[in-house]
């Protein structure tokens, strides 16, 4: 049987782990608020730009943008948004699984895929799985800067422009609520055209200043950027929520473990006392 000292040591080590996990839980809980807030602040921009884009789609523009063009697909690019840090349960792995299954599905149709990765976890995962990685950004921190994503976005859009990639998928976790996060794989390019039945086909068009092509090019790029930025922010809210939950579970498990070990400790101690007593009694009888 284990001796008391050993058990005591184990209890102490689990207790210190518990302290760490409960502190991490509290940190995550306070960060959720911040990230959620940021998500809300960024929403008006994405809504407005979406509105403008849909206006443009509804107008009878003289110029149609390549992002709307459905062309024969030979290669798809997956833009995967992940977290930089672990300890957040199955958040990243669930997403990667979905990405891999989608990519396998495309492969059956003869479509190859490559990957553009945001976050450290995606980078290490796709390094071990093996995959054609075209771009990678990591260590965005708790407050992702839109500027940090421009390079990656440009790489992906350039690939599309050059015809090396025909479809782009945006993969990230969707924030449902603090308890639930949902991995999503959504088609980014070609942009899904919305069916608007209520709007009769209009015959108006914007006046463009300067050229339509130049302007729409910029606007579309900005739109894609805003979608990606939003996905990154949403993912970071998900990360904090998942982390809080994972750390809460860890703290609870540590508590259970400590209870069991304390029971064991008492048993061992009692056994030692009993043994000692019986030795003394035995010794006294022998004298």
């Amino acid at each position, binding site marked *: 049987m284990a001796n008391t000292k050993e058990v005591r040591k184990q209890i102490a080590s689990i207790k210190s782990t518990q302290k760490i996990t409960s502190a991490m839980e509290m940190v995550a809980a306070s960060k959720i608020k911040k990230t959620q807030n*940021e998500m809300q*602040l*960024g929403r*008006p*921009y994405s809504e*407005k*730009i979406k*509105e*403008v884009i849909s*206006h*443009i789609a509804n*107008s009878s523009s003289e110029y149609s943008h390549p992002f709307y063009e459905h062309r024969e697909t030979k290669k798809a690019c997956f833009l995967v948004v992940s977290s930089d840090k672990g300890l957040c349960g199955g958040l990243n792995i669930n997403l990667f699984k979905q990405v891999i299954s989608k990519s396998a599905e495309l492969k059956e149709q003869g479509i190859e895929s490559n990957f553009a990765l945001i976050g450290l976890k995606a980078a290490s995962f796709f390094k071990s799985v093996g995959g054609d990685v075209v771009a990678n950004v990591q260590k965005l921190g708790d407050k992702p800067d*839109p500027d940090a994503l421009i390079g990656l976005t440009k790489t992906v859009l350039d690939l599309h422009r050059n015809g090396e990639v025909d479809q782009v998928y945006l993969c990230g976790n969707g924030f449902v609520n603090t308890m639930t996060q949902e991995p999503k794989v959504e088609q980014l390019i070609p942009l899904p055209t919305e069916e608007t039945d209520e709007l009769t086909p209009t015959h*108006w*068009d*914007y*006046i*463009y*200043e*300067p050229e339509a092509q130049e*302007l729409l090019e*910029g*606007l579309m790029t*900005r739109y894609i950027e*805003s979608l990606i*930025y939003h996905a990154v922010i949403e993912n970071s809210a998900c990360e904090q929520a998942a982390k809080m939950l994972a750390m809460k579970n860890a703290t609870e498990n540590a508590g259970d473990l400590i209870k069991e070990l304390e029971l064991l400790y008492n048993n061992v101690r009692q056994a030692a006392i009993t043994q000692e007593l019986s030795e003394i009694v035995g010794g006294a009888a022998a004298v």
Partner: protein
Amino acid sequence: MSTIKVSIVSSSEEIYSGEGTMVFATGSLGEIGIAPGHTPLLTGLAPGPVRVQNGDDEKTFFCSGGFIEIQPDLVTFLSDRAERAESMDEAEAIKAQELAEKNMHDKESELDYTKAAAQLAEAAARIKTIQKLRKNK
């Protein structure tokens, strides 16, 4: 009096949303005034002040580059960065301008010329906004 719905948003927050009787902004091809019932127009937004008039009330905002979408009943400013002009600091703006100028002249600097020029334009526009605001007071 007829009004037009105005919204100014930047990628990180909503700056202003409300009604206006007249809006002035700097488009990529020059200053434009937007009154209710304007023809649909899509144009670039140059760094500079955006003034929203509602009757006698006037509010000034600063927008860095972006886009303006105009419909007869609404105008939307999609700015990369926007701020309320009141919260801007002139000293900061002048410092930014000096830095941008230095970057432009400094050939050793790794910053490329176009980036420095854009920075300079933005800083200059910022100062213009502050000074305009001060004059109005």
